[in-house]
C-alpha cells in the first residue's frame, strides 16, 4: 500500500516537473501585462496580436515551409540512399554508415559553422542555404528510419514480383515501398521535428531578413520575450497535443470498428 503510494507520488512529481513550466507559459499567455511577475488580469489579446503581427506570421510560415520542404527532400534522398546502402557488402556498408552517422553525432555548432563557410563560397545566404542545411542534417534520420524496415523485408517478395512479370519500378512501388512506408513516414516526421527544433545550424546558415521562430525568439531575448510568443507557444503546444491524442485514439477506434464488424460478420 505504502509502496503504491510512493510510486504514485514519484510519477506525480515527474509529471509536475515536466509540465509545470508549460503550465506557467500557458497561464502567462493570458496575462494582461507584459511583465512576468505582475498579473494584469485575464486577456486573449496576445492571441489576436499573434495573428496580426506580420513578423511572427512570416517567421511561422518560414518555419513550417522549411520543415516540410526539407523533410520531404530528405525523405526522398534518404530513402534512395537506404535502398542503395541496404544492397552493399558488409565492409562498404559499414564505411558508408560511419559517414552517415557523423552529421547525426556531430555537434550542431560545428555543422552550422562548416555549412556556413561552405555556402558563403557559392551562394548568398538566404532561404535556399537554409533549406540545403536542413536537408543535410535531416537525411541521416531518414536513412536510420528506413534501413531497419528494408532489413526486415523478405527479398523473395520483391523477386517474386519480378518473376511474375513486374518491371523493377512496378515491383518497387507495389512491394518494397508499401512495406517500408512506415519507416519513411517516421523518418519524415522525425525530420520535420528536427528541422523545427533546430536553432544553431539555422542561426549560422540563414541569410539576413530570413527568420524562423527559433531565431526570431532569440532576437527578442535582449528586451524580454513578448507575451505574443507565449500565446504562439501555447498554440503550438496544443496542436502537438491534439496530434498525439489523435494518433492514440484513431488506431483504437479502428480496432474497435474492426472487432465490431468481425463480430457482426460472425
Amino acid at each position, binding site marked *: 500500500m505504502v509502496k503504491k503510494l510512493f510510486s504514485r507520488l514519484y510519477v506525480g512529481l515527474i509529471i509536475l516537473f515536466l509540465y509545470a513550466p508549460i503550465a506557467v507559459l500557458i497561464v502567462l499567455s493570458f496575462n494582461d501585462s507584459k511583465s512576468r*511577475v505582475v498579473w494584469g488580469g485575464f486577456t486573449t489579446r496576445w492571441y489576436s496580436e499573434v495573428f496580426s503581427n506580420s513578423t511572427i506570421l512570416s517567421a511561422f510560415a518560414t518555419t513550417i515551409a522549411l520543415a516540410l520542404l526539407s523533410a520531404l527532400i530528405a525523405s526522398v534522398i534518404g530513402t534512395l540512399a537506404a535502398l542503395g546502402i541496404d544492397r552493399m557488402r558488409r565492409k562498404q556498408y559499414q564505411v558508408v554508415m560511419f559517414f552517415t552517422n557523423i552529421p547525426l553525432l556531430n555537434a550542431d555548432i560545428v555543422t552550422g559553422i562548416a555549412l556556413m563557410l561552405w555556402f*558563403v563560397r557559392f551562394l548568398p545566404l538566404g532561404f535556399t542555404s537554409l533549406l540545403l542545411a536542413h536537408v543535410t542534417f535531416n537525411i541521416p534520420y531518414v536513412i536510420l528510419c528506413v534501413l531497419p524496415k528494408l532489413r526486415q523485408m523478405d527479398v523473395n517478395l520483391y523477386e517474386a514480383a519480378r518473376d511474375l512479370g513486374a518491371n523493377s519500378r512496378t515491383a518497387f512501388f507495389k512491394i518494397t515501398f508499401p512495406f517500408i512506408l512506415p519507416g519513411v513516414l517516421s523518418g519524415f516526421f522525425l525530420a520535420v521535428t528536427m528541422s523545427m527544433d533546430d536553432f544553431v545550424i539555422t542561426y549560422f546558415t540563414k541569410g539576413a531578413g530570413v527568420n524562423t521562430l527559433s531565431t526570431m525568439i532569440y532576437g527578442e531575448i*535582449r528586451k524580454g520575450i513578448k507575451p505574443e510568443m507565449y500565446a504562439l507557444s501555447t498554440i503550438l503546444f496544443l496542436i502537438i497535443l491534439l496530434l498525439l491524442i489523435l494518433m492514440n485514439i484513431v488506431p483504437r477506434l479502428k480496432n474497435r470498428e474492426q472487432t465490431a464488424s468481425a463480430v457482426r460478420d460472425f
Partner: protein
Amino acid sequence: MKKWCYLAAAVCCAALTLSGCNNKEETESLTIFNYGEYMDPDVIDMFEEETGIEIKYEEATTPEEMYTKYSSGAISYDLLCTSDYMIQRLINEGEVQKVDFSSMQHTGNIGDKYWEFASVFDPDNEYALPYFWGTVGILYDTTKVDAPVDSWDVLFNGDYANNIIMPNSQRDAFMVALKYLGYSLNTSDEAQIREAQQLLLQQKPDVQSYLVDEARDEVVAGNAAMAVVYSGEAYLGHEYNNNLAYTIPKEGSNVWLDTWIVTKHCQNVDAAEKFLDFLCREDVAAMNFEYIYYSTPNEAVINSLDPELRNNESLVPADSATDNCEVCTQTDAAVTQLYSDLWKELKSE
C-alpha cells in the same frame, strides 16, 4: 545510361530554379544589422515604401555576437547598429566608412550633447550616428526605502543588507564601485581597480544576488528594495509598479550610447545615408522612441514629448545628472585580464 541523363537534367533544373531565387532583378537593397526589438517594424515598411529600397533586416542579441557574425563575412552588412565599445573596436579595425553627417537633412535633430558622447570613440564625429542612449542607475522601491536615493552610498552602507541586486557583469559592477570611490570607470590604474574590488568584496554579504535581465522583475515583484539597472529597464519597471523610482547617483555613472555605422562593405552609400537620415526624421524617431522607450538623442522628439514623459528621469535625464557620467571605452588586454581575474575572485568568494 538513360537514367543518368534524366537525373543530371533534373539536378540542373533544380540548380537553375534555386539560383533563380537569388538573382531577382536588381532592386536597390540594404542589409541592416541591429539589436533585436530595436526598431519599429513599421519604420522599415515606411522606408521601403518611400524610397523603393528593399531592406534586409537582421537581428542579434549582444555586441559580441554581432561582431562575430559581422567578421565571419557570411553576410555582407551595409549598416550596423551596436554599442559604444564595439563601435570603437570596429572603427579601430578599419571596418567603418566615413559619412558626412552635416550634409544630411535631419541629422541636426541630434543634440550636441550626444555627438559629444560619441566623440569618446569617434573623435571627429565622422563615423557614428547616435541612435539611442541611456544611463545605469539605481531602481528602487519607494515603499521600502525611506530617504530619497541620490548616491551609490545606499548600496555600500549596509542599510539595505540582503535587499540589493548588483549587476552580474564585470564592467557594470566595477563601474559602480569605481564611481563611488571617485575614479573614472575607464581607469587602467591597477591600484584603483583593486580598491574597487575590495569594496565589492566587502559589499558582497549584503548583496541578495547578481543579476542582469531579471533584476528589474525582482524589484517589480517586491523581492528586493533596489537594483542597479539600465535606464530602459527602469522605465519598464515603473510601468508595472508605480512605487518604483530611478536615480542616476550624483557621483556619476555610465552613459551608454548605441550608434549606427556604415561598414566598409557597403556599396550603395547613397542608400545607406538615406536610411540614416530617415532615422533622424522627427516622425520616424518618434515612432522608434514609442516602440523602444529608451532615451532618444533626437531633440525634436524630446521637445514634443508629453510633460509627464519629459520629466521622467529614466527617459530624459537632466543635463546635470549626466555631468559626471562617462561613456565606457574598450580597455586594453592587460586591464581586461585584470578585470576578469578580479571578477572571478569576487564571484567565487
